[in-house]
C-alpha cells in the first residue's frame, strides 16, 4: 500500500464519472492524426486519487510543518492571505490576452509592484517578466549585452564571477554566450580585490555578485569592486537571492549595481511549491531601462496598459508566452502591502538578528564558523571539517540526522569553496524557541557523532524512507513507471 504508485492502484475501465463531460465525436479527424493506443493515465476513483495524494503529501517536509534553515533559499513563512488574494476569481480566471480595458485590476497590481521593487532596490525601472531568479539573470546579461552592443563595445565576451557564486551565475553566462572568468574569494569571505584587478579587462562585460555574498558575509569592498569594474567599462550585476539580508536597510542601487534580479519566492515570501514557481523580476538603472524584457506595465492615457515592442523597441524581447508568473507577482504585492515600509526594514533586522544569534549559540556549543571574525548576515556558514576528519562524520550526515528531529537540513556543500559546510539561514519568521531547539539538536548530534557515530552516519531513521541510493538511481535509470509485466 504505502509503496504503491497511482498506476499500481489503477484499474482498466474505472471511471471517475463526475469528472467526465459528455464526450464528442472525433469521426471527422483524419485517421492518421488519431491516437491508436491509449496513454498511461490512471483509472482510479476520486477518493482513490485524493487518498493517494493526501498520503503522499504527508511524506514531505514543508515550511508549514518544519523549521527549514536552508541557506540561500530564504524559507520564510508564506502568508496564506497572499495565496488567497491571488486565487480570487477575477485574477484566476483572467485569460492572459484579455484586453487591457478589462484587466485594469491586475495591471494596477503589477504596476504597483514594479514601483515598490524599484524603490527597495534603488533602481529606476523594473520588468516583472522573468519567471525565476535564473531567468532574471539571463535577462540581466542580455540587457548588458545589448548595452555593450549599442555602445559598439562588441568584444566584451567575459563575465566575471566569484568562485563561491551560485551555479546559476556561470550557467547563465554560458547561456548568454559569455565566457566565465572566475575571481577568487579571500580568506575572510570577501572577493580578492587584487585578483579582480588582474581579471578585469576590456573583455569584461560584467561582474555578477551577490551581496551579502554566497559566503554569507557582507562584501565590504563593494564600492571598490564597483569602481574597478566600471572603470574597465564593465557593468555590475546583482544576484538578489540574498536581498532579505538588507531589505529596507540599503539597496543594490546604492552599492553601484546597474542591473539585478530579485527572487520574490525568497525575499517576498511566495511559496516554493516543492521546486517552484518563483518570480525573478529585473530592475535596472536608467542606462539599461530601454532594454527591459517585455511586457512591462505602464500608465498611459489614464489607464494601465502593457508596454511591448512598440513602446520599447530596444527590448531584449519576451521571455515567456505571456506575463511571466503573474500569480506569484500578486502574492508578492500582497506581502509587500502587509509589510509596508516599516515592515521591510524589520525583515532585514530580524533575519540578521536570528542568524547572528544562531551562529553565536552554535559556536558556544562547539561548532566552527567558517568566518568566525565576520558578522553573520541573514545566514552564516558552519564548517564541519574537524568533525569529518576526527570523527568521520560528514556535513551530509549532520544534515540527514537533523531530519530525524523534524528540522530540515541546512544547505550542504555550498559554496563549494568552504569544505564540509552547512549554510544556515533561519529567516526572520522563526522565533527564538525554534532557534534554541535547533541548537539543542545540533549539540545532540555532535555528541552522537562522538559516542555513536553510526547513528549519525545512518540517518535519517524516523522518516518515511531511509537514506536513498543515489548511485543506483543514476546507474539504473528508472524514470517512468511501467507495468510489472513489462519489467521482467
Amino acid at each position, binding site marked *: 500500500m504505502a509503496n504503491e*504508485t*497511482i498506476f499500481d492502484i489503477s484499474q482498466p475501465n*474505472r471511471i471517475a464519472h463526475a*469528472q*467526465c*463531460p459528455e464526450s464528442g465525436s472525433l469521426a471527422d*479527424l*483524419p485517421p492518421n*492524426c488519431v*491516437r491508436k493506443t491509449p*496513454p*498511461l493515465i490512471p*483509472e482510479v476513483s476520486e477518493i482513490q*486519487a485524493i487518498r493517494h*495524494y493526501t498520503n503522499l503529501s504527508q511524506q*514531505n517536509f*514543508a*515550511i508549514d510543518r518544519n523549521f527549514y534553515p536552508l541557506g540561500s533559499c530564504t524559507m520564510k513563512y508564506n*502568508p496564506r*492571505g497572499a495565496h488567497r488574494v491571488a486565487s480570487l476569481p477575477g485574477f484566476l480566471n*483572467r485569460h492572459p*490576452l*484579455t484586453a487591457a480595458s*478589462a484587466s*485594469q485590476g491586475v495591471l494596477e497590481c503589477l504596476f504597483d509592484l514594479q*514601483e515598490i521593487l524599484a*524603490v527597495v532596490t534603488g533602481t529606476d525601472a523594473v520588468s516583472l517578466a522573468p519567471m*525565476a531568479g535564473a*531567468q532574471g539573470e539571463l535577462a540581466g546579461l542580455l540587457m548588458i*549585452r545589448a548595452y555593450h552592443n549599442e555602445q559598439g563595445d562588441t568584444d566584451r565576451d567575459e563575465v566575471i564571477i566569484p568562485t563561491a557564486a551560485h551555479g*546559476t551565475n556561470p550557467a547563465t553566462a554560458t*547561456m548568454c554566450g559569455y565566457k566565465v572568468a572566475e575571481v577568487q574569494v579571500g580568506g575572510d569571505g570577501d572577493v580578492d580585490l587584487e585578483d579582480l584587478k588582474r581579471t578585469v579587462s576590456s573583455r569584461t562585460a560584467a561582474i555578477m555578485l551577490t551581496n551579502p555574498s554566497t559566503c554569507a558575509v*557582507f562584501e565590504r569592498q*563593494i564600492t571598490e569592486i564597483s569602481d574597478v569594474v566600471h572603470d574597465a567599462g564593465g557593468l555590475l550585476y546583482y544576484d538578489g537571492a540574498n536581498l532579505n539580508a538588507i531589505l529596507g536597510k*540599503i539597496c543594490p542601487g546604492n*552599492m553601484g549595481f546597474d542591473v539585478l534580479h530579485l527572487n520574490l519566492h525568497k525575499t517576498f515570501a511566495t*511559496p*516554493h511549491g*516543492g*521546486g517552484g514557481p518563483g518570480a525573478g523580476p529585473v530592475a535596472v538603472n536608467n542606462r539599461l531601462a530601454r532594454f527591459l524584457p517585455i511586457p512591462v506595465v505602464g500608465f498611459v492615457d489614464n489607464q494601465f496598459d502593457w508596454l511591448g515592442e512598440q513602446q520599447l523597441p530596444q527590448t531584449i524581447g519576451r521571455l*515567456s*508566452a*505571456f506575463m511571466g*508568473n503573474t500569480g506569484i507577482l500578486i502574492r508578492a504585492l500582497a506581502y509587500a*502591502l*502587509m509589510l*509596508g*515600509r516599516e515592515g521591510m*526594514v524589520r525583515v532585514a533586522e530580524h533575519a*540578521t*538578528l536570528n542568524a547572528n*544569534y544562531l551562529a553565536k549559540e552554535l559556536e558556544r556549543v562547539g561548532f566552527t564558523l567558517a568566518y568566525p571574525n565576520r558578522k*553573520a548576515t541573514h545566514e552564516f556558514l558552519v564548517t564541519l571539517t574537524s568533525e569529518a576528519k576526527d570523527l568521520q562524520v560528514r556535513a551530509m550526515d549532520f544534515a*540527514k540526522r537533523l531530519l530525524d528531529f523534524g528540522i*530540515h537540513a541546512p544547505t550542504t556543500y555550498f559554496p563549494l569553496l568552504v569544505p564540509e559546510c552547512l549554510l544556515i539561514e533561519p529567516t526572520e*519568521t*522563526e*522565533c527564538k524557541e525554534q532557534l534554541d531547539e535547533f541548537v539543542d539538536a545540533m549539540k545532540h548530534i555532535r555528541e552522537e557523532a562522538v559516542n555513536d557515530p553510526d547513528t549519525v552516519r545512518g540517518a535519517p531513521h524516523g522518516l518515511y524512507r531511509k537514506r536513498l541510493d543515489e548511485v543506483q*538511481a543514476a546507474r539504473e535509470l528508472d*524514470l517512468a513507471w511501467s507495468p510489472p509485466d513489462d519489467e521482467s
Partner: protein
Amino acid sequence: MPFIPHTLRDVNSMLDSIGASSVEELFSEIPNSIERTQLMGIQRGVPEMEMTRRLAERAKKDEVGPCFMGAGCYDHHIPAAVWDLASRGEFLTPYTPYQAEASQGTLQLLYEFQTMMSSLTGMDVANASVYDGGSGLAEAILMAIRCNRKATSRRVLVCGGVNPLYVQAARTLVSSQGIELIQCPHEKGTHTIESLSGGDFAALVVQQPNFFGQLENVDAISDWTKSHNALLVAVVNPITLPVLSPPGEWGRQGADICCGDGQPLGIPMASGGPSFGFLCTNMPYVRQLPGRIVGRTKDRDGEIGYTLTLQAREQHIRRAKATSNICTNQGLLVTAATIYLSLVGLRGIQSVASACHANTTNLVNRLCRSDQIERTFSGEFFHEAAVDLHCDAQFVADKLLDRHGIVAGLPLGQVFSDLQSSLLVCATEKRTEQEIEHFSDALQECVADG
C-alpha cells in the same frame, strides 16, 4: 512587524547572547559610504484584512463573462479536488526536493508525472518541468542543437504554425548563442513538405495542432525532417494527446524532443502564469535534457524510494557547463497537473478532449452560417479555428467585450499583419450550448454592425 515573532524580551536576550548592544550593530560591516535606503513612497503596512479588501476590489474589476479565447491558454474545468490537494501546505511550501528522505511525497508525484507525460507524448522520458511553453521551446531548441552532433548548422526551421508568442520568447532566449531561427511560412494555415525551405538546418519545429488549431501532416513533416538528418521538435497541447497521435509516433521515427505548456491540465488561466512547460525526449538524449529529473531507486532497507537524478546535467553541479541555467521550476503546477490527470482519469481526459473538439466544431458551424463569416483556412482543426469576419476583427472583439462581457477569440491581426479580419476562437468542454449560441449570435450582430 507582520510575520516576525520576536517580543522585545526575545530581542534583548538574543542581543545579550550575541554581545551586541543593538540590532543596528549587526550591520556594522556595511560601509558607511553606502547610503541607507529611504523607502520613499512605500506606504505603511496594513493587516491582511485591509490588504485583502484592496486587492479584492481590483480582482473584481477583471471579472468577465465566458471565454472563447485560446491561443495558448485555455479555460478548462478544474475539479475542486485538484487545488484543494495542491494547496496543502505539504505540497505548497517545501523547497526543491534535494533532501530526498524528507521529500518522498513530491518525488513520487514527480515520478508519476514523468510517467504520464512520457506516455502522453509517446517519448521515453519527461523532465519535471521548465517555466512555460515559450521558454520550453527555447530549451528544446538549445537541446536539439546540442543533440544533433552531426549537424554543422546552427539553423533551426520553425513552422509558421508554431505559436508566435513561443517563437518570440525562444528568439530572446537563444539569441546570444548564434542560433538562427528560420520561419517557414505556412500555406493556408498548414505546411506541406514542399513548402518547407531546404538548406542546412539542425532541427525543425512543428506544432500540432498548430496555432490556428489546424492539424498538420506531422507524419510527412517528421519523415522529411529526418531525411535531412535534422531533429524534430514537436510542440503540443497535452489536452489533445489522449486522442491525437503522440509525437513519439509521428512518421517512421517519431519526434526527438517534445515540448509544450501544461496549463490545460488543471492550471487556472491566471493571466498566463504560473503554468508550466514540459520537455520530453528519448533515452539517447536524456543527458541533454535540462531541468530536474526524478529516478526510482531503493533506500538502505531496500524499500523503493525516489530521488533527483542525473544532477550532473544541472547548474548546481555543472555550473558553466550545465544543460541550462534553470533552477527554480514550476513544481507546484506539475503537482496540480498530476493530480488533475489522476482525478479526471483516462476516460475523463479523452472526454474532455473530444468535447473541446465537438464544442469548437459546433461554434464554427454556427458562425459560418452567417454570410459574412467563413473559415480563414480549410482543413481539419481540433479545438481552435480561425474565422474570417471580413471586417476589423479587433474592433469586433472589443465590442463583444464591451457590450457582452464576452472574451471573444484572439484578433489574429495582433500577431499576423495579414490576418486583420480573422479571429481565432476556441470553445472548450466548459462552454455550454447556450453560451456558444449566445456568442455566435452576438458576434454575428457585431459583424453586421461593423
